[in-house]
């Protein structure tokens, strides 16, 4: 049940993010200066940290979603808990791989 509840919550959070994202990127229409100003703001350490969080939320939703798809189309209901943890291990590995460069940039930015 927890996996489903988290799936819902992460899904709702991602929809909220998607809406914001569409608005932010639309700043392209107002020319380079404005866009780069907005992007600079979003490049600040606080937002970089949130980006790492976003990556985690996306990976959870994606890999739990894949688990549901596997169960829906091929079965695996009897090993659903093991499947969950397998998926989470993959997601965690990708999280580390993905968060490292962001954190690297972040540290770089902080050092300057």
């Amino acid at each position: 049940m927890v996996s489903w509840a988290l799936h819902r919550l992460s899904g709702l959070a991602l929809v909220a993010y998607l809406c914001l994202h569409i608005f932010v990127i639309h700043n392209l229409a107002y020319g380079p200066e404005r866009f780069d100003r907005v992007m600079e703001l979003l490049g600040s350490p606080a937002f970089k940290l949130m980006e790492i969080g976003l990556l985690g939320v996306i990976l959870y939703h994606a890999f739990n979603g894949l688990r549901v798809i596997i169960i829906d189309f091929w079965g695996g209901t009897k090993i659903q808990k093991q499947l969950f943890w397998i998926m989470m291990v993959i997601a965690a590995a990708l999280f580390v791989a993905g968060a490292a460069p962001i954190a690297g940039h972040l540290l770089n930015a902080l050092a300057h």
Partner: protein
Amino acid sequence: MSDEKKQEHTQSMWVRNTGTGGSRTWLFQRLTGLFIVLIILLHFGINHLIGTGEVTYDVVANRLSNPLWKCFDMAFLTFALYHGFAGVWVVVADYVQTNSWRLAIYSALILSGILLYALGTITILGFPFK
């Protein structure tokens, strides 16, 4: 179930018959989900692993000058928006059982979905802006 709620149920076929969708809604949610996973892995890999993760106007302009990238971004926008709003739709179907609220929320969802899609499409296809 309270009597009020029961009455609403018997009165309103509309609330009973909207919401969770049917077989195709269920199938599309899975298909779009799969696509998004692929697209997002590419998106993330290109931006943060190959690229520097820095998004400047020039970087984006360079990318959007390529029609293939425009297609890629349009596919992303379409699938993600559909998947997200269909998901919210189902959540609402689970928890909102009164006619008026359901109608209000669904109208708002349809409206904002169309607006967001329009906005995203303008950004991607309209680029570069004069």
